[in-house]
């Protein structure tokens, strides 16, 4: 590596040099305008950076932070509620569908159980009759579960909307607060 390159690296490293290295650099700077310009530009730009004003936030930063924190935590809780509701809705939906399949589809578990029970004891109430009885209520039961499912979905949607609108309110208030300051 040439002295010129070594000196350039020293300048751009911007660290304190050993006396011997400092001497070599100073000697090189006398004869090399490129390096002396580089050294001046580095020193001046770094000094400019160091002396630049430290930017401060508008007054009331901590209060705005407290406000933001309270709103974020409220949003977090609301989101948790929404997740719980969606989970419940999903679980209930799956359960109600499983219930319908179990009782109303032919050649299913209940059907087999019915045959087994008929063989086991004639005294036991016939599952066939029970099946017929439940079959008579198939549509109302299905309807009830669908209505229940829809109502829960509407509730979850309303909660989601309220969470979004409260977030928008918060942002609006923050903007107003910021503009006032």
């Amino acid at each position, binding site marked *: 590596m040439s002295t010129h390159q070594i000196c350039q*690296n020293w300048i*751009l*490293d*911007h660290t304190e040099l050993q006396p011997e290295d400092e001497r070599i650099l100073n000697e090189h700077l006398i004869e090399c305008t490129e390096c002396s*310009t*580089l050294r001046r*530009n*580095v020193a*001046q*730009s*770094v000094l*400019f*950076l*160091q002396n*630049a*004003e*430290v*930017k*401060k*936030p*508008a007054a009331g*930063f*901590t209060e*705005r*932070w*407290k406000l*933001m*924190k309270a709103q*974020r935590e409220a949003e977090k809780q609301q989101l948790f509620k929404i997740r719980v509701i969606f989970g419940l809705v999903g679980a209930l939906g799956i359960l109600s569908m499983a219930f319908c399949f179990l009782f109303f589809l032919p050649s299913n578990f209940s059907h087999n159980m019915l045959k087994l029970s008929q063989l086991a004891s004639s005294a036991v109430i016939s599952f066939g009759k029970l099946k017929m009885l439940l079959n008579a209520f198939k549509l109302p039961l299905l309807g009830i579960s669908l209505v229940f499912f829809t109502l829960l979905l509407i509730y979850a949607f309303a909660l989601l909307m309220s969470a979004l609108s409260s977030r928008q309110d918060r942002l609006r208030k923050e903007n107003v607060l*910021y503009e006032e300051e």
Partner: protein
Amino acid sequence: MIEISRETIEIAQSGDEEAYAEIVEAFQVPVYNLCYRMLFNEGEAEEAAQETFWKAWSNFQAYDSNRSFSTWILSIAAHYCIDQKRKKRVPEIEIDETMEEIIPEKTPLPEHEMIRSEEDARLKKLLHELNELDRAALILRYWQDMSDREIAESLNLSESAVKSRLFRARRQMAELWGKGV
């Protein structure tokens, strides 16, 4: 560099909001300054600083008390700003437009304000061209007086990577300074 007592940090870490508010009060200026110098927009810097404190509060359990708190919080701020720049690609205002906006013709600013605005615009021109990580390294070095090791910790880089980033950033700044920026 600001340091806050270990006791206050431990109290805040256990969930005490008032202790955390003390931390916010103490670190608002370095965090905001870093965000402003990274994003060059007051609104964005305020949002980024608030978000930094929220992230720190939400992940306070992850903070290792053997590390410097300022390094940790500035690391969160730097990463957040870098992500913002990369994700949103914050629309950068043209440098010439900036001067027009800062010094409107109809309402002349007092002389010291004008000088400060000019310096601010010049600083923006200098930092504008730098890569986000180089810019963050430079800010941490010259505004927060961080060592190479601290910068490496903050930006998740190796010390040699920090050295080469600072080297490159100084060269770029010197070139711009030489062109009269």
